[in-house]
């Protein structure tokens, strides 16, 4: 300190610093940037609890949790990928493919423990394959995951001639059924599971070297590389985590459907990615987190539940979630525009993310 001798901080400066740190505390609770979505969520909830008396019942709320667990698990994986400035379009297909592996192995009489391990490893392998093509072969993530979206779905159809595998009553299925139906006190086991998943993912993002490296890579891959981060490995792991989540999600899905369906739900992919983006994770990378993703999933889940309770045709649900996605992300962009145009441009500059980089190397 002595040798630099910077101009002493003026009293007003220290005052400003103090005011700022109070603001930071609020910021650390991380509600600040979620305010918009949370307010919208509150409005929807109030509206529904007035118009639909079923809405606020414990059973209905827990139903929302159970019905959205697959989405949440996949959205956690997608959050990692999107923070790395990528996107995984194959996630719903990978879930269908993993579900078929689960169905076939269980049907073939494999032990349940082995079945679950194989299913999860299969999901991991699908994610690894995406990551390998993106980081080692340097093919654009859009091209790779668009390709595997089609391939993994096709695989799910091929393995059993397109037929659904019903697992109801099969030996071993009871474990999976228990997983999706058991309650711990008043709470579904799935809720407990979701909370644990949230803590684990949030912990990885916030308190591990990998989490830091992931944000750094998504923010500016060149700067990350120059600071000794193995960018390819970080990205590879992000896609592998997405694959792992697809494996886990397939187990929940099979449990809820009491069977493995070869055809993936066409709205699943949109819902997953929409939830992540609504939750404030930027598609340009380097920003966001799983807490926002939870909020995004709950928001879409509540709206969906409200539409169902209000007897609105299921056909409308796509319109509603699409509109919500555009307005939530759009509002975020507008808010930023209020800041500095230049800053925003800087953040989107050429090297700011693999969003543009891999495309040019493909």
């Amino acid at each position: 300190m002595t040798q630099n001798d910077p101009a002493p901080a003026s009293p007003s400066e220290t005052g400003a610093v103090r005011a700022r740190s109070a603001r930071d505390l609020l910021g650390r609770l991380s509600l600040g940037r979620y305010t918009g979505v949370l307010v919208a969520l509150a409005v929807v909830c109030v509206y529904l609890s007035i118009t639909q008396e079923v809405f606020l019942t414990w059973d209905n709320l827990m139903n929302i949790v159970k019905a959205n667990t697959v989405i949440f698990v996949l959205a956690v994986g997608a959050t990692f990928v999107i923070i790395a400035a990528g996107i995984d379009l194959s996630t719903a297909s990978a879930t269908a493919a993993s579900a078929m592996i689960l169905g076939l192995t269980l049907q073939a009489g494999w032990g349940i423990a082995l079945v679950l391990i194989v299913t999860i490893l299969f999901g991991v392998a699908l994610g690894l394959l995406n990551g390998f093509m993106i980081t080692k072969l340097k093919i654009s993530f859009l091209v790779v995951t668009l390709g595997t979206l089609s391939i993994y779905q096709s695989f799910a159809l091929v393995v059993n001639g397109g037929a659904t595998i019903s697992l109801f009553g099969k030996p071993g299925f009871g474990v999976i059924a228990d997983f999706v139906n058991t309650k711990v006190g008043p709470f579904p086991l799935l809720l407990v599971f979701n909370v644990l998943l949230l803590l684990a993912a949030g912990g990885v993002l916030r308190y591990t070297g990998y989490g830091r490296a992931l944000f750094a890579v998504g923010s500016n891959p060149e700067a990350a590389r120059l600071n000794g981060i193995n960018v390819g490995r970080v990205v590879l792991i992000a896609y592998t985590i997405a694959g792992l989540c697809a494996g886990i999600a397939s187990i929940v899905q099979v449990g809820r459907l009491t069977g493995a369906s070869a055809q993936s739900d066409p709205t699943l992919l949109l819902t997953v990615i929409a939830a992540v983006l609504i939750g404030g994770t930027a598609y340009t990378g380097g920003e966001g987190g799983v807490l926002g993703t939870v909020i995004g999933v709950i928001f879409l889940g509540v709206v969906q539940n409200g539409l169902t309770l209000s007897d609105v045709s299921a056909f409308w649900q796509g319109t509603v979630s699409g509109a919500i996605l555009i307005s939530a992300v759009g509002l975020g962009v507008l808010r930023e525009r209020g800041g500095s145009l230049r800053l925003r441009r800087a953040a989107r500059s050429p090297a700011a993310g693999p969003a543009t980089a891999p495309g040019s190397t493909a």
Partner: protein
Amino acid sequence: MSLTSEEERVTEQPNAGSTPLVRAHGITKRFPGVVALDGVGIAIHAGTVHALTGENGSGKSTLANVIGGALQPDGGHLEVDGQRRTIATPAEALGLGIVTISQELTLAPTLSVAENVFLGRLPRRRGRIDWNELHERAREVLDGLGVHVDVRRRVGELSVELQQEVEIARAVSSQARLLILDEATSSLSEAATERLLAVVERERARGAAILMISHRMPELYAAASQATVLRDGRHVADVPLPDTAEPALVRLMVGRELGDYYRKRRVEPGETVLEVDGLTTPGGELRPTSLTVRRGEIVGVAGLVGSGKAEFGMALGGAIPSSGAVRVLGREVRLDGPRSALGGGIGFVPDDRKRAALLPTRSVAENFAVAWTDQLTRRGILDARGERKRVAEAIDRYGVVTASPQSRITTLSGGNQQKVVLGRVFARGLDVLVLSEPTRGVDVGAKSQIYQLMQDHAAEGAGIVIISSELPELLGIADRILVFFRGAIHGEFDAAGLEEEEVAHVAVSGTPRGAAA
């Protein structure tokens, strides 16, 4: 400082009789936790070059952004041609003939040079873009600036310097009434700076006003006829140039006497810390180069843009592929990337802060800690408390002015961003530091701090290589100076008593002064 009350001296400036082209009155701008501008006034007259000076974070860019329509003031107002008005967007400013060339490049990297020069004003014929006309006109503009580049090339493939020149070409071709240059020269070589100054003079003679922001005093003295000085967001003084002596101007900026800002200490060099043997890049930008650096030594590297000096630094830091042998304290350093370089004890700070150093979406704290990830994690788990402590120490030691460690790095002024980028590498305690243009965009006070920090680290036993296009800085801080010419070292000088001309001669011609040509 009593000069604060001298805002009214504006009226004593040349052109006092005429209405200023643009006048700002009592502009106040607050950001969360900072008052960036506090009642600042400035009057800019047509046909003059007006310098805007002050330390990093004093509010220069903020004022430029307010005038350029990129930011809205919280208080005060603007007058254009004596008419009070608001400038809500950069587009509106453009409509008024106010063109900004900012510190941050704003080019579209995937478009061609020509498209960028005429972005938003592409020449059309029958509704279609007239490509021939576009290319011709772009070539004309660039030729006029003395810049030689294929106008069809994608801007993203160009060097930072060429990109900056394209940005300048865009501004110049738009026949601006007020041209705002916010550190437009910070990534330009001396030759390109000369060219820009010639353009500035041409534009001024044409009747345009130029608001020039720069930390390079010689430029301001060469071009400007008056200077407005800001400090901590407040207007300090308006002074005539070049009649105000540099020490006096610096004193207004920093609020105290700066004295000799290199304060060069001679350190007795120790054992050899870095040995470079035949280092070369596959593309041939760097021909086989050898060098040794001893503990405590500061070696300066000079050369023109394209001389290979930048590649030399990047190759040492593992940023680009290279071959040859590099040893730190006798141990071989693998040349397969930044990770190996860091592991081998070589820290590298790249010259292009925005492209290669900043994590724009992350906090000040994370921008520091990204360089320390391996030191702060144990079995993959981050030591959050240790990180907070080290970040707080670094903010203090490197004099980073920030509202909080959690502020986004992009909310800091350019110079403070640079202190973070340097500090995170300094703080690793490495044996060798390779710094490329370490004081780019940094104010005089902070430059002096950075020079002291470099010398502290040298005194602690590091070997330092500093690559710079500012000769005075190399002469002031280095013990020894190497000059690159066409990819190889063509001259080596002891810095004591060395004259700029001797270095410049080798840089330009490859031969020492006085040698037969």
